[in-house]
């Protein structure tokens, strides 16, 4: 198990290295106009040359990459070109916002999908129909459009919830929940669509196993059979789909944070992308991949905890 985890982490680090290298080459390979853009139309060529020198853009690409990499492995991701703040500081401000939103969304997706999926697997009927409808609607409606509609209805018309902004959990848990209610509602639908279907399938598979019949033959009640045995055996599949959802939401946060003016990683990415703040973009890519890596390793560990057989591999 330890060697397996070590392999997974190593493989993830290789991925991190490859992707950041490609991103670096793509971004720093096309920096001819960067200084001009930062300084504006009226900059003199002397100013531009000076800025390029200061940013290190006049050096060959591999030298720039070497500098960036040696900083990055020490946790120094450089300084933003547009705000005079360190990239790592910016990221540390933005990450908790996005992570709290995505985690809340994953929690909601997990609970709703587990309930729907289990009822649909055991009873069929209305839960099956709900899942079928959600699977089409949740997939077809862009979540930011749903977010816009929610804003119009609940914030602009009914005035129940704030349309924009974010309140940190530490300053007001109630305000935090209120500020995330609409964005989280907007992003969970598509997650519920795929997760509830997967959980339904996994529970149905588990219920067809021989050991379920044997447990029933011994007189174990349906509640225990479904919740304790079938759901627990379906858990790995459910966790996998939730981890995939986590990754999707981490990216999707970019759009939904824009709609709700949430100062998270997503809006930072959009801002940096539109303004060409390349060090920040590199930082975002690094942070996102590391988060994905952490999520995947955590899922592996939970798998091992749930399924004793995995521990041996």
């Amino acid at each position, binding site marked *: 198990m330890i060697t397996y985890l070590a392999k997974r982490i190593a493989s*993830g680090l290789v*991925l991190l290295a*490859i*992707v950041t290298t490609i*991103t670096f080459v*793509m*971004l720093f390979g*096309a920096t001819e106009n960067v200084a001009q853009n930062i300084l504006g139309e009226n900059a003199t060529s002397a100013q531009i040359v000076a800025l390029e020198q200061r940013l290190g853009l006049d050096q060959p690409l591999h030298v720039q990459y070497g500098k960036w990499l040696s900083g990055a492995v020490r946790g120094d991701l450089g300084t933003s070109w547009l705000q005079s703040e360190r990239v790592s500081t910016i990221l540390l401000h933005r990450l908790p916002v996005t992570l709290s939103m995505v985690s809340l969304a994953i929690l909601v997706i997990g609970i709703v999908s587990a309930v729907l999926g289990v009822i649909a697997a055991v009873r069929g009927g209305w839960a099956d129909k709900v899942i079928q409808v959600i699977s*089409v*609607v949740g*997939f*077809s*409606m*862009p979540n*930011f*459009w749903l977010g*816009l*509609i929610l804003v119009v209805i609940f914030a602009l018309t009914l005035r129940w919830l704030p349309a924009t902004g974010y309140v940190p959990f530490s300053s007001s848990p109630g305000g935090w929940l209120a500020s995330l209610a609409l964005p989280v509602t907007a992003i969970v639908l598509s997650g519920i669509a795929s997760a509830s279907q997967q959980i339904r399938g996994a529970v149905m598979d588990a219920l067809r196993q*021989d*050991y379920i*019949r*044997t*447990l*029933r*033959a*011994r*007189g*174990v*009640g*349906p509640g*225990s059979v479904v919740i304790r*045995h079938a759901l*627990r*055996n379906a858990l790995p599949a459910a966790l996998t789909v939730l981890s*995939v959802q986590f*990754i*999707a939401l*981490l*990216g*999707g946060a*970019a*759009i939904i944070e824009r*709609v709700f003016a949430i100062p998270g990683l997503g809006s930072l*990415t*959009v801002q940096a*992308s*539109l303004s060409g703040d*390349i060090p920040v*973009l*590199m930082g*975002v*890519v690094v942070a*996102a*991949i590391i988060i*994905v*890596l952490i999520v995947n390793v955590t899922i592996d560990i939970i798998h091992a905890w*749930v*399924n*004793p*057989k995995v521990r041996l591999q």
Partner: protein
Amino acid sequence: MTDFSNEPTSRSPKQGRFAFARAVLANPLGLVACVMLVAVLCVAAFAPFIAPYAPGDLQIFKMNAPPGDGYLLGGDGAGRDILTRLIYGSRNTLAGAAVAVGVAGLIGVVTGLIAGYFGGNRDVVLSWVSDGLMALPALIVLLAFYQALGASIYLSMIVFGIMLSPSFFRLTRNLVNGVKHELYIDAARVSGLSDLRIIVRHVLRVIRAPLVIQTSIVAGIAIVIQAGLEFLGLGDPATPTWGGMLQNAFANMYTAPMAILWPGLAISVTVASFVLLANAIRDRLQQGDRVTAGTTPKPKPAPSSSHPRGDSPDDDVLLDVRDLVVGYPGKGGWTEVVRGVSLTLRRGEVLGLVGESGSGKTQTAFAILGLLSEGGRVLSGSILFDGQDLAHFSEKEMRPLRGKRIAYVPQEPMSNLDPVFRIGYQLVEPMVAVLGISRTEAKARALELLARVGLPDPKRTFSAYPHEISGGMAQRVLIAGAVSCKPDLLIADEPTTALDVTVQAEVLELMRNLQAEFGMSMILVTHNFGVVADSCERVAVMKDGAVVEMQEVTKLFAEPAHPYTKMLLGSVLNDTTVRSYVAPRNPEVTA
């Protein structure tokens, strides 16, 4: 999938495809989806003829104008006609989706074919790359690349296509892995066809329909992501796009909230059409293995329990099964797997239930337990257990009987233990539920039972997981579990078949001893006459879902009445191991 993989060469591809397309269109949702997609396609193609204005036309006094006055859906924030821009926006949307799907499909299918067909190192490397791509949050990568790619949404869609290619890769690879060992592929290889021709002719045909489904779904994803990028302002502002329109509407949300409705609807309806088309195709592919709810046949009413043999009720009889018919829903009604089984079992008696595989032995056993697989049910007949007819018992009424009165030992020990729970837990839980005793008491009893069934280290087995013990040990655990609540009837379904020969005799002996010790009745399902001769007092012979002969064991061996029994015995008696079982205990058999 079945349509293609089962008979890949039996009909000409053209015929097959058209028949298939017709079947998909026969599904109302599939038809609606196709009509919608064709409509969107036409709108995109003939935009200049349909749209009332040019996409760039603006009338300054119609900024955020309400619907009417020449602007059917109103004006946007710059005073342009929303309807016109919706119509032109379909072009960009479909083209962008086509680019993403094209790139994803091309890369994914080609690499998937290589990985699946050739395997080895190529598979390892490609799978790693695919997993890596899937682990990336696509939108963040697209946003990061925007600086390098520039405002062209098509370049972004190419990158997105690459990021989506793993979905095609995995699908293709798994499908190819599934078919590459089929006989017709081997035959093609032996007959000297080149790899390329085999792939194109046989493999691609099998994976065609699943690929269409995947294409539909990926097209939907691409449309949504594309709209998202445009909404963020990452597209070319000069081109009318649905996402760009949403951005414009968002900026003017306080003045003209209705404007956010139309582009979103256009996106949703288009994507929903793709999803519904995918669903219609999937439904069609799965139709072979499923019965639609409307055609589920009703069970026949149970006949009055007149009995051909007309035995009088006997206090000594524990179980009396009469004319039992068990069926599963099939294509044209019920498929009967048990057709009129009758058998009786006295208290303390061991009855052998013999027959070749598929003769309905196991289904009869499950029917008695009320544990038929999904969809199965008792269509007629009765199962009198201690005077109660179990055939008409509900699940709720059956539950108190299971474990306590009727118990079950399965055939395959390893698959009958829940892999994620310790063995001890799986023994304790039913005892607590059935006997209502405390956990500590149940644990003590479980340890006793584990020792009784001959496990050398009960404590260790108790705290072991199923994968940590051998098949023979697992079967002993299952036997311990079955007898743990002192049942009156034990149904053992081929309890030794899956075990090593050396262990078989020990397990049989254990069962026989426990049966005598607990005074249980036992039904021993088996296909082995040696087991019958060794353990049973009477035997019922099954063929094609019915009992053809029920006899005392000695009598059955001496003078089998039914030709089928004779045939079975004839084929077995040549087997020396069986005779060595039979001879010492039942000398009259060989006489």
